[in-house]
């Protein structure tokens, strides 16, 4: 169990737009901002709120595959491009597939715990629309084990989660599971409509659940999922400050404008082994349990969750893995409306990966920014009302097919 030996906070979050299909301004053939533009926009946004680069001791950047999406490596050295004042400061780039963002947070948290930094600038970024989806699938597939690529699906990860969905259909019933996945989609889009940076912000479709019940077509895609079950291909970046109490003082940020990191769980599974039970997210369950234990709370204390719904089925299964729904009853939990913004535990309140977008390396940081906004009352039209009895927010960021998982428990600073 990770015992936090010192108080750690997050504040000053910033999200760029999640750019890609769905956004009106997105045109695949027109020039768009690049990797460095996104890093700069998000980084500057957070630096402004931290009182400038002078207040920052260290930078950490999470990114999955800029080396292939953008032919760019050595991303740590792009942190000083955000602001001159960051030059010569220690910076690190971390990678753990789609969990890279939360790994950046974990690295920043460790620096604050180690007292080597009072203020860390954490950035997550991915710019994926540089290649067509069919080639992007090759790049994303590197989050899986290379030796499985040849026998894997053309769309490797949709294939993996299609297998998981298939296992759930067999175990718990196809119709109910598909209806829960369609409800998940509807919640995601309805939440995204409330957030101006969300990729699906402009979605005006009325019959969302009916649309999401579109039958999967294995000839062109995978066996058990349709495109509505998938997160988006996105360009985007998010940034947030990770601070000690002293750091907050230095930046002039009141504790109530910050969230406290009260629990951290970080779990790694073996990339070369298949899941024991594809109908269960075991690594997610272990990470969530570790985070809750670290925070000294129970799942029933959670007021809101940002979970890694790279596919709708992953969202549904996360309700079980976190311990909010009993095993096998995730679909019932979702269908009962418990994860919607008016439900018991609102999930993914700005749309999650399906609705807000999934700039892979940025997602973990985006989740933290969303929870910071929700817990400090800065979520604007997407704001939910939290019950004082359940003041905790949980983020779950997953890399690969439930291989690298970081879960963090937050509470508003006081």
């Amino acid at each position, binding site marked *: 169990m990770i015992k936090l030996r010192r108080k750690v906070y997050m504040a000053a979050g910033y999200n760029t737009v999640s750019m890609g299909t769905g956004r009106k301004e997105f045109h695949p053939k027109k020039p768009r901002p690049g990797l460095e533009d996104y890093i700069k926009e998000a980084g500057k946004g957070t630096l402004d709120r931290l009182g400038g680069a002078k207040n920052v001791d260290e930078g950490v950047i999470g990114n999955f595959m800029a080396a292939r999406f953008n032919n760019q490596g050595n991303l740590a050295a792009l942190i000083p491009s955000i602001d001159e004042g960051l030059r010569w400061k220690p910076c690190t780039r971390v990678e753990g597939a789609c969990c890279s963002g939360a790994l950046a947070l974990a690295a920043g948290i460790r620096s604050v715990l180690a007292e080597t930094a009072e203020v860390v600038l954490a950035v997550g970024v991915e710019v994926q629309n540089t290649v067509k989806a069919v080639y992007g699938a090759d790049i994303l*597939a590197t989050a899986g084990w290379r030796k499985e690529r040849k026998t894997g699906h053309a769309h490797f990860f949709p294939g993996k989660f299609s297998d998981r969905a298939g296992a759930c259909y067999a175990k718990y019933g196809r119709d109910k599971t598909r209806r829960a996945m369609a409800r998940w989609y509807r919640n995601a889009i309805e939440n995204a409509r409330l957030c101006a940076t969300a990729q699906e912000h402009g979605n005006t479709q009325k019959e969302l659940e009916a649309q999401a019940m579109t039958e999967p077509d294995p000839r062109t895609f995978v066996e058990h999922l349709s495109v509505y079950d998938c997160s988006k291909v996105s360009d985007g970046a998010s940034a947030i400050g990770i601070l000690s109490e002293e750091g907050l003082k230095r930046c002039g940020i009141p504790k109530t404008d910050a969230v406290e990191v009260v629990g951290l769980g970080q779990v790694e599974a073996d990339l070369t082994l298949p899941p024991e039970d594809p109908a269960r997210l075991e690594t997610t369950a272990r990470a969530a349990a570790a985070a809750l234990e670290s925070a000294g709370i129970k799942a029933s204390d959670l007021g809101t969750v940002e979970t890694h719904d790279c596919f709708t089925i992953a969202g549904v299964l996360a309700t079980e893995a976190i311990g909010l729904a009993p095993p096998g009853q995730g679909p019932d939990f979702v269908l009962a409306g418990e994860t919607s913004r008016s439900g018991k535990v609102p999930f993914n309140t700005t749309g999650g990966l399906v609705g807000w977008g999934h700039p892979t390396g940025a997602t973990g940081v985006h989740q933290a920014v969303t929870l910071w906004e929700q817990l400090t009352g800065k979520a604007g039209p997407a704001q939910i009302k939290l019950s004082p009895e359940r003041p905790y927010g949980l983020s779950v960021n997953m890399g690969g097919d439930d291989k690298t998982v970081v879960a963090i428990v937050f509470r508003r600073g006081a």
Partner: protein
Amino acid sequence: MDYEGRLGNVAVLGAAGKMGSGIVLLVSQEMADLSLKPENRSKTFVLHAVDISHQALSGLMSYLREQVRKGAEKKIVALRAAYADRSDLVDNSEIIDAYVDRALDIVRPTTLIEAAAEAGAVFEAAPESLDLKLKLLAKCGGKGPKGPWVFTNTSSIPICEIDEKAGLGGRVMGFHFYNPPAVQKLVELIRAKTTLAEVAAFAEALAKSLRKTVVPSHDIAGFIGNGHFMRDMLFGMAEAERLSKEMPFTHAVYCVNKSSQDFLVRPMGIFQLVDYVGLEVCQCILKVMDPRLPGQGLKSALLERFLGQGVKGGQNHDGSQKDGFLRYEKGRIAGVWEPEAKRYVPLSELQVDCDKKLGPLPEPGLAWKSAVKHPAKDKALAEFFCKLAGMKTLGAELALRHGSRSKEVALALVSDGVAARAEDVNKVLLTGFFHAYGPVNDYFQVKVAK
């Protein structure tokens, strides 16, 4: 020789042209797919892409490289299965590259038509002239029923004439792709009385494998597609000339074009369609049809005059529209040709006047784009045309006359034996011309049979 054997060696004549390049694309992909079957791995597939210009053939190869790749990207799921035994090809990108290489290896660009003599099947896509087609086919080898099977892309010349004059002994069939062949779903299959049964069976199997919508047409000049289009075009031109007694010619062209698009809920106006096809192509087709269907007035002095003035229409290599009856800017109509002054009159000089003369569209409007995907299309169209019939405007009058004429032409195609059924004519207009409704419908009345 079976279907696959016949496709082992193919020639396309006029391969670098607009139709030819599309046919090369479709057939080379079909051949590449066949070559991936385990039992065909050791066989060689060859497609001779024959054209007169090396430059055009080089353009064809660039076009193929781009289009085969796009096709491969779309069928990646099937390709991964086809390449499952190739342990060296792991990523999608490697598999797609391998497929593109394979398809392009099949295609042999050449200016030597003699290469076609060894082919099992020849796709002929030369310009619409019987003499030229006969000249080319004479070089393709074979006599009587022995020799390559010929699939001609003619859109108007009777197949039996080609068969007889080229001495093909029945090994010929009309395989009329629509433009562009790779995109357009429609294929008109024209079987001459003399066409051998096995040739017809091959054509049907190929069309099916290419996932085309097949409409059979009888072997009468113009077939169904041009049988309707040419008469529809001549009607539009006659309407413009009739109107030009009351208004400037350019205004008349604008009014007829607009009424045949917006008031008739068609994808483009009749003059824009003529420009799209190209004035020369239209003229060639009329020259085929008129002598074979005498007394029907299938000729146009207007086309002759415009072509004499160098007004041609058609498309540039990049697919952009060349100026014809109308002038285009970024694909939008920007002017109308004035044959007296020999210049384009800018739209700004006539549009306001003409739109006033045409009058408003029925409310609520029904644009072609929304009509084609309307969930209750038939009802929406019926309401639109019902309101149109009650309007006493020039636009409504022109559209009603045009809609009636189109229906009359379609019914005549059935009664004259060109089409077996009214549904076939409708299918051609719906699929090949992207109309929102078939010409045989309840929206328009046919008053007097001409």
